[in-house]
């Protein structure tokens, strides 16, 4: 009743190829954008403090959505599995730190984007094994990348400017007279910057995957031999997927340190984080942009909310709640994967399909 394509005729291929061919989808996206840009900055999330909403929910969820988008491009669209996500975020963060040190006057947004390019190059180098090996063997190769990069973050003191703490730290950065990053920056400013980057990156990703290059990735994913006989060069397709994916992951790593945590050490980029991002992609749904949003939000928000509720409503010790939230997340993952192995995105698709037919069952 509310979600119908009936009567929405397209007379040009261009109209049908639009990002949201259905009027209902356009309205839905517009509402979501208004909520993100107007409603949440003004009212926050009802029942939660503004500080908490921004610092513990919205900003990290947006940043991890960028990570998940990046990993989903590689895993869900190009079919190349990687366990090095955590370390690639580290590459983004450390290279952003180095770029900021070398060019102190450079706009921080440009630094972040440049660090994305650095990560893309590193990702391409560590993607080279994918030309020869697949599946489980590729996991091992990317795991090697994870451990090698972690080692580099500790041992190569140049990366953290030889400081004693061994970590990297953001300083106050101004843009248009406004402090946008560092200890004195306002959470709301950072929120808008991260949100805008997320919207922009989502738009670019959705464009790429619907076009020639995205199709070449999916061809390699689904049937690499046929892809090659149709004219896709495996080298170009696989390495471009690694580069594009790492670009996103690198940007999210730089954002995580300089727009959220403020400072980071090597522990923020270890292999357990890589697994968390993998969970986000799988729970959200492989090969789905909407799924990347849902997966990142669910996996991040559930533990945070459980901890918060336990602390404020029941007065439980934070340590107890920490364990409880891990148990709950584990159960949630298992249940979701049994109910719908293709993730939340598929559930959402089924819902939309039902809405199209509503009130009839079929």
């Amino acid at each position: 009743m509310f979600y119908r394509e009936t009567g929405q005729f397209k007379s040009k291929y261009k109209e049908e190829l639009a990002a949201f061919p259905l009027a209902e989808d356009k309205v839905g996206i517009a509402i979501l954008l208004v909520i993100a840009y107007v409603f949440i900055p003004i009212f926050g999330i009802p029942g939660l403090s503004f500080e908490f909403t921004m610092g513990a929910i919205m900003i990290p969820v947006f940043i991890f959505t960028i990570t998940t988008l990046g990993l989903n491009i590689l895993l869900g669209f190009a079919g190349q599995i990687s366990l090095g996500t955590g370390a690639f975020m580290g590459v983004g963060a450390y290279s952003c730190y180095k770029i900021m040190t070398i060019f102190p006057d450079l706009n921080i947004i440009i630094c972040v984007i440049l660090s994305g390019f650095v990560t893309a190059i590193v990702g391409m180098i560590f993607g080279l094994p994918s030309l020869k090996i697949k599946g489980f063997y590729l996991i091992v190769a990317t795991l090697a990348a994870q451990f090698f990069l972690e080692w580099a973050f500790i041992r190569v003191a140049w990366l953290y400017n030889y400081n004693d703490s061994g970590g990297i730290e953001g300083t106050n950065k101004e843009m248009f007279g406004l402090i946008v990053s560092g200890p004195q920056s306002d959470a709301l400013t950072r929120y808008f910057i991260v949100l805008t980057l997320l919207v922009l990156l989502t738009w670019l990703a959705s464009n790429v995957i619907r076009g020639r290059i995205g199709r070449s990735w999916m061809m390699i994913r689904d049937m690499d031999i046929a892809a090659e006989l149709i004219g896709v060069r495996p080298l170009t397709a696989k390495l471009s997927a690694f580069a594009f994916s790492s670009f996103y992951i690198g940007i999210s790593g730089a954002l995580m340190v300089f727009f959220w945590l403020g400072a980071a050490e090597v522990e923020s980029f270890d292999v357990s984080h890589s697994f968390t991002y993998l969970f986000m992609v799988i729970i959200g749904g492989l090969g789905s942009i909407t799924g990347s949003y849902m997966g990142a939000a669910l996996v991040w928000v559930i533990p945070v909310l459980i901890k918060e509720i336990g602390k404020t409503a029941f007065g439980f010790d934070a340590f107890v709640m920490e364990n409880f939230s891990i148990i709950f997340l584990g159960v949630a993952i298992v249940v979701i994967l049994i109910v719908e192995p293709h993730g939340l995105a598929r559930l959402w698709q089924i819902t939309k399909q039902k809405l199209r037919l509503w009130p009839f069952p079929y």
Partner: protein
Amino acid sequence: MSEKNSVIMEVKNINLRFGGVIAIQNVSFNIFEGEIRAIIGPNGAGKSSMLNVINGFYHPQEGEVWFNGEKRPSMEPYQIAKTGIARTFQNIALFKGMTTIENVMTGRQLKMNKNFFWQMLRYGPAIDEEVQHRRRCEEIIDFLEINHIRKTPVGSLPYGLQKRVELARALAMDPKILLLDEPMAGMNVEEKQDMSRFIIDVNEEFGTTIALIEHDMAVVMDLADRVVVLDYGKLLADGTPAEVQSNQAVIDAYLGVPH
């Protein structure tokens, strides 16, 4: 059905070995422009290997492939695809995660060339290119009568339709030569009739040269202009269906006698 009988492709003295196994032994034959050429033979005769040699998936130890009057250097499959050779597979090799239209669009991959920058913006040249190729794909989809499944993920389609989508994808490449590896395997009579009709239509309407492997002799004898018979990697016979059918060696090795 070419009258002038110009050779578009010729394989000369192909020898293909896998270690000690001889898959193809000194086989030569040619394909005329615009004809339907069948390759038949018992299982393991080297028919599919021959197609794999033609589209560059196997590199023969000896022998030459001549295409368009030129000797073809050793090339990778994606480069050979560019020269205008398309194929379908014995075991369907569609992109299962994509819809029918997306699968057909992949056939246009080589004809699209707008760079990453325009692809990211999906604006201007990139979208124009997409629309232009989409038009051609829709024509092929209409031609093969698969418009009703345009937006269905191919993984959920029945076998016969999947075969037809695969043919559509190969046709979308606008090939000079179309290689069909058992296009009618596992089909019932009705589906075979449909497929035969499409193969003839493609040959006559687009003028595409077709080389096909098939086990159904009735189909082969009806469709093909000329037939190559392989047995144990060797060339057994080459000629019109009538000639091949009356060849004693072919009857002994493959066709048998009606009981």
